[in-house]
């Protein structure tokens, strides 16, 4: 009996480098299942951003490229232009996608570039110690908002809703959560199919947990995730 983990995982790199209970690895597991389901391991190229997402650099047994902070989208758009038959995935966090890399993301959606962007939203910059990010909701305590995020720093940033306004009607845009991995896997599979069959842009935001920086145990993490899901509604847009 095998299949503890997706076939597309690189078994030699396990146990991986993410913290115990990290939502990234739950999302990457579903991404692995989606890759297995579609049988696209050989033609997949994965681009990863800076931040905790970069710890996925040896996670999969697929071609992987490490890009600059926030520049995963344009690098993978260029890769897709040069290698149109490949399945191209860009994997990033909320800091890389919504802060430093937002203009790249907006233009890729606007041009309807046929790539699949997977963005993990855990409401902080986790690798550098849990600083406030654009997606941090008002009132949430982080290391740079010790009294709770003030409204002058903006409310939580809703990326999929923004991209929906400018993306082509053929684009697939959705938000999933690690609390429901089966829905998450389905969205990821749909997003990859939308790239290969419709040659359109697809974007999946994944609400995730960060026990290390939230300083929560597993139950509190999922309670907080439930609160997040109220502000960031799940589903296809």
């Amino acid at each position, binding site marked *: *009996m095998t*299949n*503890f*983990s997706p076939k597309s*995982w690189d078994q030699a790199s*396990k*146990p*991986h*480098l*993410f*913290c*115990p*209970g*990290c*939502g*990234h*690895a*739950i999302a990457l*597991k*579903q991404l692995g299942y989606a890759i297995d389901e579609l049988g696209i391991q050989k033609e997949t190229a994965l681009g990863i951003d800076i931040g905790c997402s*970069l*710890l996925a650099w040896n996670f999969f047994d697929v071609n992987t490229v490490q890009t600059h902070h926030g520049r995963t989208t344009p690098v993978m758009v260029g890769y897709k232009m040069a290698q149109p038959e490949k399945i191209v995935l860009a994997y990033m966090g909320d800091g890389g996608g919504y802060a430093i890399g937002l203009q790249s993301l907006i233009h890729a959606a606007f041009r309807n570039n046929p790539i699949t962007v997977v963005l993990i939203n855990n409401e902080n910059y*986790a*690798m550098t*110690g849990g600083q406030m990010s654009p997606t941090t909701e008002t009132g949430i305590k982080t290391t740079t908002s010790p009294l709770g995020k003030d409204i002058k720093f903006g409310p939580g940033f809703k990326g999929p809703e923004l991209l929906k306004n400018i993306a082509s009607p053929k684009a697939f845009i959705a938000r999933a959560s690690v609390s429901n*991995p*089966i829905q998450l896997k389905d969205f990821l599979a749909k997003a990859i199919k939308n790239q290969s069959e419709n040659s359109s842009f697809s974007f999946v935001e994944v609400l995730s947990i960060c*026990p*290390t*920086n939230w300083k929560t*145990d*597993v*139950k509190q993490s*999922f309670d907080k995730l439930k609160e997040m899901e109220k502000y960031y509604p799940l589903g296809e847009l």
Partner: protein
Amino acid sequence: MEEKIIKIILAGEGGQGIQTAAKVISAAAAEAGFEVSYIPSFGVEQRGSPSVAFITISPKEIHYPRFDNANITMILQQRAIAAVLKYIDAQTTVIFDSSTIQPTLFKNQAKKILGIPAMKLVSEGSLPKASNILMAGVLAQLLGLPDVSTWQVIVKTLGKKFKTEADKEKNRQIFLLGKKFKLEENSFSQPILIPQSGQIKIEGEGKRAIIIPERCKSCGLCIARCPAGALAFGQKLGLFSLPIPEVDLKKCTACDTCSRFCPDGAIKIKKIN
């Protein structure tokens, strides 16, 4: 303390509190009137990669904290040994956690090897995360730092983390235990707190459960998400020497939720015929 430069390396894993212990010892030595340099070195990960601290303690000014070899090397994690092996030579005293580490790797290199079953001691004191406090106590013992002022530095550094007075007192006992502990020489405790190798298989009720302890990080996700309440922490230990889940196959419905969630691919329960 002798009138010469002492170079100390603390090595462990991110999350074990290596840098906290190093800060405490540096501050305590500075308070005792020495010149101190402390250089942390760790990877991009907050957890799971080697974390090393280089401390130089000197009676005179330190112009350049160059590190060729260490006088004292303290190792708290098996996987951190590779990161510090090149600093161990014939002048080095190695102190290691004998409850989680086999001393074979550095046995022939060091001048003196001392053991302390740190993980075992702190687990018995019901403070499984306090092995850094214990090791700070051991270092204070070796350097001859005074009890009271070193403990005050710990309170100053970690003050907010002690939620109650009882917590604080427990930590103080752990520190004093390290300070007074007679270190093992020549014969060491057996490393009992290491992950079991291979797979744990249980069968029954028409189901088969397999858990890989070397993969399990004891995050408890599977336990929290199990809809049938069939999982709970047991006695066996995983990757971080912490308890791993145990399956109650009577309650389990083989719904595969645990396996879906497990971020590390460490658990699988299936129906068998």
